[in-house]
């Protein structure tokens, strides 16, 4: 250990030392564990350098800045969220595979990962998957789709949208930095004190966790406000609440949950930070501290969070089942009520995350019953989706395959959830891998499959060409097979008493199951790889698969009514809506591709760098706080608030697209429509599909 720096260097670099660098640690102590750590660090550094070099070589800095970073277009922001999620998913999935391999290797021997490294892996895996994969995926998808579904040109607060993205990205970058500089927390994704307090963990690890999560939660709160206001205020004429597509309904419920559920997380992490930085006693052992407060605050966020994650996927499934069955959604009203019911109930069950932590049996019984109640609206949904397919013209496209896999797998996970909701059973299996199996069984079908389905479903809308079906099917196969191989053994192991988060195991009987689970992990890695290959192949053969008219699946919502990719203002003329499935109705009436009687100037928000600057400020502040570099922390905060104030003095915040230009673009689009041959549903996965759907008979 080299001594911490003094004087000037201490002020400049805080508590950073040479040993903070992963490479130096591996040099001093060249174990497999440290070498794996420094390889990951090297990947981050090489990745960053390669990205910089490529951007410079291809002179892409300016286009990247102008077209993406400063953009406040909800579609581009949505895409950037998805890219962020893809990068982070790759890291967190590799970490998962490492853990699976370690456990398969470490029966009655230490394995190749040190306990501390293993602790960091499950902490970053969970934190990243929830805050920097799942949340960006759903935020990205809602961002891209929702405004178009309700007939809006953008969200209510486009600049705030960009700021949310900036803060989320800052949190993700902070976690990436933790691979190179210092160590991450070993306290798990929930960061329970007193373990994460100063007395047990004086290092920078928990601080990395606190500030990464805080950045993300502030960004998410703003996103929730933005989406909710957009859905309440920006709907086009006639788009009543009960006419909104179901994806928008789930977006609304998720936003409401974000508004009310993110503050508890912010409070919990802020209090933990006060304990760690200023010696407060919220969650310490003794001195009047009470760690149960943390458990309550964290899960008061944590449980609604589960529904923040799952509801948008339910929305995607509703769209996919309906579109690929060529039928209107069965039981729309019951689906809306079920979604709302789930959103409300989600605030009444948080205690089931700690049945074993000392409250009396009556309280446990109440929360157990409340938890089981959630099964009812969810069951309603399952049946609605099945009835939607009934006697429909079902096509087994990739999104549909994922939706079907979800339907079955999610029910299995739901049943184990009912088991866990029973406090006596929970006492038996809590803190075992049974729980790990359960929540992966909910979130992989209930979030990831949904987001992948949504990505496959709306990708042609975003980029103007379809994704490759064959690679998509292969990827689907890997995701499903990998899931069952990786997690079904964990149910067995958990019921057999295998504790979760174990770096080393001492029962030989676990070994066969752990090997199966390890293979499952590798199959899941292959699944991600095939997803990337699919994207690569699809980009290469994009000219054959273009769908410029923008309606490749005979879609039902307004988002399918414009060209693909959509013009930046979405709608040439804001549509008037007279019922549900607005675009289907217009197609039936023959009004889908008609010139407007009159075109008007369109006012759009002007791109600006607020999001990028505030994101950078947030990153600087968080990094400074982690390493006790106080000048940097203060500077970061000043940059953030300075930018907010500076921005309020700018009056030119809009740009006008003249009516003539809108009309010219619309007429060009209509001309293209008239020259395009409509495709029958039987051929929608062939190059004949140019994005114009033949009228369904």
């Amino acid at each position, binding site marked *: 250990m080299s001594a911490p720096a003094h004087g000037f260097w201490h002020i400049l670099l805080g508590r950073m030392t040479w040993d903070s660098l992963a490479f130096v640690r591996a040099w001093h102590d060249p174990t497999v564990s440290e070498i794996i750590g420094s390889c990951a660090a090297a990947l981050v550094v090489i990745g960053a350098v390669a990205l910089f070099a490529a951007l410079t070589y291809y002179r892409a800095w300016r286009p990247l800045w102008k077209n993406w970073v400063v953009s406040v277009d909800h579609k581009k922001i949505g895409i950037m969220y998805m890219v962020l999620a893809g990068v982070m998913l790759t890291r967190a999935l590799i970490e998962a595979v490492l853990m699976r391999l370690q456990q398969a290797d470490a029966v009655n021997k230490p394995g190749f990962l040190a306990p501390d490294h293993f602790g960091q892996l499950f902490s970053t895996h969970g934190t990243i998957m929830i805050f920097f994969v799942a949340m960006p995926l759903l935020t990205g998808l809602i961002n891209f789709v929702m405004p178009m579904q309700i007939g809006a040109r953008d969200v*209510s*607060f486009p600049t705030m949208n960009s700021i949310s993205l900036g803060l989320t990205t800052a949190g993700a970058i902070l976690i990436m930095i933790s691979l190179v500089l210092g160590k991450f927390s070993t306290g798990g994704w929930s960061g329970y004190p007193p373990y994460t307090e100063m007395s047990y963990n004086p290092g920078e690890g928990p601080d990395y966790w606190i500030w990464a999560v805080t950045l993300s939660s502030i960004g998410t*709160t703003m996103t*929730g*406000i*933005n989406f*909710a*206001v957009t859905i*309440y*205020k*920006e709907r086009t*004429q006639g788009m009543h609440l009960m006419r909104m597509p179901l994806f928008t309904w789930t977006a609304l419920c998720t936003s409401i949950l974000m*508004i*009310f559920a*993110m*503050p*508890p997380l*912010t*409070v919990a992490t802020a*209090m933990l930070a*006060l*304990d760690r930085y*200023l*010696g*407060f*006693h*919220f969650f*310490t052992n*003794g*001195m*009047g*501290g*009470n760690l149960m*407060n943390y458990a309550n*605050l964290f899960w*008061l966020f944590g449980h609604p969070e589960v529904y923040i994650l799952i509801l948008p996927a339910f929305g995607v499934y509703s769209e996919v089942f309906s579109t690929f069955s060529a039928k209107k959604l069965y039981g729309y009203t019951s689906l809306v009520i079920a979604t709302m019911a789930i959103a409300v109930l989600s605030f009444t069950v948080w205690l089931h995350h700690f049945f074993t932590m000392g409250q009396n049996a009556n309280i446990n019984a109440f929360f157990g019953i409340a938890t089981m109640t959630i099964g009812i609206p969810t069951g309603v949904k399952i049946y609605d989706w099945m009835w939607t397919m009934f006697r429909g013209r079902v096509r087994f496209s990739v999104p549909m395959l994922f939706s079907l896999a979800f339907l079955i797998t999610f029910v299995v996970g739901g049943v184990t959830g009912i088991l866990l909701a029973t406090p006596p059973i929970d006492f038996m299996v809590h803190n075992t891998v049974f729980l790990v199996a359960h929540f992966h069984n909910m979130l992989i079908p209930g979030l990831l499959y949904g987001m992948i389905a949504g990505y496959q479903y709306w990708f042609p809308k975003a980029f103007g060409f379809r994704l490759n079906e064959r690679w998509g099917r292969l990827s689907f196969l890997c995701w499903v097979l990998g899931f069952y191989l990786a997690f079904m053994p964990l149910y067995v192991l958990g019921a057999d008493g295998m504790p979760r988060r174990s770096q080393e195991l001492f029962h030989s009987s676990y070994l066969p199951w752990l090997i199966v689970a390890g293979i499952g992990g590798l199959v899941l890695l292959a699944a991600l790889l095939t997803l990337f290959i699919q994207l690569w192949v699809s980009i290469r053969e994009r000219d054959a698969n273009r769908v410029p008219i923008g309606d490749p699946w005979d879609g039902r919502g307004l988002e399918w009514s414009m060209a693909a990719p959509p013009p930046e203002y979405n709608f040439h003329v804001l549509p008037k809506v007279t019922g549900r499935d607005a675009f289907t109705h217009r197609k039936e009436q023959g009004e889908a591709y008609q010139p407007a009687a009159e075109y008007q100037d369109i*006012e759009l928000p002007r791109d600006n760098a607020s999001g990028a600057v505030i994101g950078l400020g947030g990153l600087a502040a968080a990094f400074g706080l982690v390493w006790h570099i106080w000048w940097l922390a203060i500077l970061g905060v000043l940059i953030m608030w300075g930018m907010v*104030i500076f921005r*309020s*003095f700018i*009056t030119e915040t809009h740009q006008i697209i003249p009516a003539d230009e809108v009309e010219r673009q619309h007429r060009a689009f209509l001309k293209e429509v008239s020259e395009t041959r409509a495709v029958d549903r039987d051929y929608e996965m062939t190059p004949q599909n140019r994005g114009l759907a033949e009228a369904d008979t």
Partner: protein
Amino acid sequence: MSTRELKHAGLNLQQTDPKTHEEAESRVFGFWVFLMSDAVLFALLFATYGVMLSGTAGGPGTQNVYEMKSAFIETLLLLSSSFTFGMASLAMKYEGKASRISVWLAVTLILGLGFLGMEMHDFVKMIGEGATPERSGFLSSFFALVSTHGLHVLGGSIWIVVMLVQLSVFGVTPAVKTRILRLGLFWHFLDIIWVGIFTIVYLQGLTP
């Protein structure tokens, strides 16, 4: 939607186009939603305070740390500042003269700063007597709750300064008006929170 009138009290955008009305409506509504989120934050701080009342760890408790006289004066200062902000809102609604609005905002600012000064003084006195946040869980929760409110008041004060500058630079434009309206919502919200703090923290401290 464009023909609907704005119903928010105190906002008079006069003859502007429907688009401005719509935008103002979204902005004000969005701010209400933010306040809901912020209210959850305070609710949790109140709940934490309630739970930690007994966590004094042998240190000072509610009976021996609070300065009632000072808390009462602080309450008066903050309540009057809400009144003066109300006067600023009325000036904005009926006369629309920048100078009148600025004067009332400035008075509000002075009252707010007076509140902050007294609160700082209280804190310094408490810390001098050994009632620091490091002393016990109870004091941690007290300082977290009251100074989170204080930080909000500080933020509001900076916001008033920004609005005073904008009033002199831009005049009474629709954008400035909706900002002052939202600032007003924020300021009154903090007043309500303070009433909660005065009741739950200070008055409760009087009970044996």
